[in-house]
């Protein structure tokens, strides 16, 4: 794993020439005052909400009990898939994400929104469904979250690859709700309309992944295909602690294209 100092110059040069697109994941929204729990922590809270009497699966925030290896073995998307199918009203699961609508943004969201507003980055990519970057930008840049908008290609704006919550009108609230992607089936093994946007971003710019584990099959397979197509492209990946197993696999497939580094 590289250190920030060794990639700093490359990244700063790309940023200066407006060729760097940040791709942010859930860890960005973990910091104060947003305080959103990460991955399994979020799922843990969701499961406690629907099965309050069962005290199941998880002992505390980040440690899963050893006698429930089966649950531990599965990714959040697999569990959410099962949960959605077992609910009589499966649209109800979108409410889990709507609870995030009141979370305040933090300074990282603010920096990203400012970079986009001041045309320092061509676009912003995220898999987060929360509206923190949107709120930090005070509605001054386009929010792209549904397939129709994605089909218009890469342009200035915040691209929510897995949909977004919120909305100003009844129509928009319903449209945004429809866009939420969080189960394995809805993700599938490849991005659909969104693939072209990612392709344009990697081929003509560079991605800088921040707070993102790479653990989404649709993004993973699309990135893998794109990197095979453009072997000279580079994705800079900021990692906190140990890289996820999925990121290690992706890097193993494209050792010259994925450059991961520690934040400090």
């Amino acid at each position, binding site marked *: 794993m590289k250190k920030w100092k060794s990639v700093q110059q490359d990244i700063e040069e790309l940023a200066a020439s407006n060729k760097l697109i940040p791709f942010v994941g859930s860890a960005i929204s973990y*910091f104060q005052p947003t*305080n*959103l729990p990460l991955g399994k922590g979020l799922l843990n809270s969701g499961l406690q909400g629907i099965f309050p009497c069962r005290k199941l699966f998880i002992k505390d*925030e980040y440690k899963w009990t050893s006698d429930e290896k089966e649950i531990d073995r599965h990714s959040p998307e697999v569990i959410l898939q099962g*949960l959605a199918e*077992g609910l009589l009203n499966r649209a109800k699961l979108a409410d*889990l994400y709507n609870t995030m609508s009141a979370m305040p943004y933090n300074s990282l969201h603010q920096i990203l929104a400012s970079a986009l507003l001041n045309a320092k980055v061509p676009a912003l990519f995220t898999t987060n469904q929360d509206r923190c970057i949107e709120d930090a930008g005070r509605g001054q840049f386009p929010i792209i979250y549904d397939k129709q908008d994605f089909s218009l290609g890469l342009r200035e704006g915040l691209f929510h690859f897995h949909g977004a919550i919120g909305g100003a009108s009844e129509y928009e609230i319903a449209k945004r709700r429809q866009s939420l992607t969080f189960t394995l089936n*809805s993700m599938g093994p490849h991005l659909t309309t969104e693939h072209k946007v990612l392709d344009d971003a990697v081929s003509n710019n560079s991605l800088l992944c921040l707070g993102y584990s790479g653990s989404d*099959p649709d993004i993973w397979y699309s990135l893998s295909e794109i990197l095979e197509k453009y072997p000279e492209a580079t994705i800079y990946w900021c990692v906190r602690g140990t890289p996820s197993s999925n990121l290690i696999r992706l890097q193993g497939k494209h050792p010259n294209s994925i450059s991961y580094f520690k934040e400090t």
Partner: protein
Amino acid sequence: MWGIEDPGTVFAPNSKMLRKSQKTIRTWATGLTQEERDLAYSWLLVSIGQYEKACIELVGKNGRGGLLARSKSNRQIHMLAALFAGYAKRELSDHNDAHKYLRIALEESKDYDLCRHAQAAHKLGESLSAFESVRFWYFWPTVPAIHPGARWLLKAIEEYTSISAEELAAKQLGRAGLGAALMNLGQLYRRTAAYTPYIRSRLAKQARKTISNALNILMDEKDLRVIPMAQAALAADDPSMTIDEKLKQIDSAIEYAEAWNQDYIQIGSAYFIKGQVLARVNPQASEACYLKALSVFRDAGMKAEIARTKIELAASAAYTINKMQGSREWKFGSSMLAISKLILCLTPVKPIIFLVLIFLIGLFILSLIL
């Protein structure tokens, strides 16, 4: 870096702050009855392969105290509890109980919910097409009059076809939809063709056609998680593909199943198909694939799949022994053991009686040869 003012240090939340946000998130599941929560919990267990636990939740111990008994006054919950129990029992290869619960689901959904009726018929067809249900006359799945598995699968396909895409999507259930039913039918044809080699080329062709059709429908239905597996099944039997192309497709299905789908049946089946493809070109690698499939099926307690894999392993062992160097006597003895194992897997006779019988037959043949 972007000429933006340094925000200073960003702080991680403390435990009090995290508890507060968790409390907010927990409020999402309001307005659900206890029965609805129990139903969702049971299906969650089924969907992650904890079939035994799911059965206890749904039918209780000794058929008492489960959701099925508690929900008799609520037709929708009762119907779904029976369907989920049938699904779990089928995965455990407990076909008698699977049929019992699926018939309850069929009864409850009749003239009430066509989609759930189709799903119950689909699972019943799948159960009746399972390996251990196979009889000699079942080798004609293209004649539904004599093959109950194919008959129920075709009924499910007919019912799914008459349901709107929106309703199917809203009631999607793990591997139960039009694409999945066609896939099961294609797999049934494929399996039968494999058991009757060299003489069922038309059936093998029909299997490929059905699976290819299933693949397109799975795409339309957005039942995307099973697509890599369908592509692998199609590639395995495609005469126009080279071994390397087939293996590439199957390896990508294995990768997807292990890393993302995490479904026992998909992981085991992907290794099983790889074992089949490698059987004639690299028997030892094929054996390793079958062993991997066996361990996955054992973890999930899938009796039918375990039996099928054991048969392939025994057949593969008999073939591998003949290809290895060694004395004629050693080859003969080892082959006899492999063949006895193969026949043992196929017959319900007590193992010790059967082994003695095979030993005596072996001695007789050996005396004739020598």
